[in-house]
């Protein structure tokens, strides 16, 4: 069964802190995504990676960076957390044969 796990379900950080969100998939998928979900705005793509060490900016990359050193792991980094980055963060990986994206349970990040 397909599995995408995220390192934390809930996270509380202070303004200015560096924040790491980790995502691991066990399906050997090449494509992975980081989204941000806010009420009324749907899912907005922050970054995606189409292979190890390959990354591309999505629609809202400002204030974020990513790392993909291994195929199964895709990390989202908030270099200096700000209160407007308080949100639900969702990671996904994509099955290339069906185009289906499989999501993790999300990390609810609060920046104080």
């Amino acid at each position, binding site marked *: 069964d397909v599995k995408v796990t995220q390192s934390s379900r809930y996270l509380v950080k202070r303004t200015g802190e560096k924040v790491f969100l980790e995502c691991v998939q066990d399906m050997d998928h090449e494509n992975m995504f980081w989204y941000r979900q806010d009420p009324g705005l749907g*899912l907005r793509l922050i970054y995606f990676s189409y292979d190890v060490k390959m990354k591309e900016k999505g629609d809202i990359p400002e204030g974020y960076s990513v790392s993909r050193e291994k195929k199964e792991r895709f990390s989202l980094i908030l270099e200096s957390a700000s209160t407007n980055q308080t949100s639900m963060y969702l990671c996904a990986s994509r099955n290339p044969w069906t185009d*289906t994206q499989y999501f993790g349970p999300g990390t609810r990040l609060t920046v104080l």
Partner: protein
Amino acid sequence: QQQVKQSPQSLIVQKGGISIINCAYENTAFDYFPWYQQFPGKGPALLIAIRPDVSEKKEGRFTISFNKSAKQFSLHIMDSQPGDSATYFCAASQLDSNYQLIWGAGTKLIIKP
């Protein structure tokens, strides 16, 4: 042109009724139209998807209707049940788009017992 517009934002339906959620798009190059279902505390999960070579796809109580000329597609949930209460997202993508999905804003569906 990359947007997918979803309506309504929220929907309340009586148990046993039909729930209908609509999406509209502008980019005629879109060739894949999935619907995702998200329960509270969970990530979205694929519910059903359609490609533009067919006008309708049915899986159990869930049906996608696709109107290529109107650039619209909709999700119909027949005999809606309280367990269908969730947020539903439509999305679209095109070949050669770096696998990106363009997402609708979501519809919060509540089925009243």
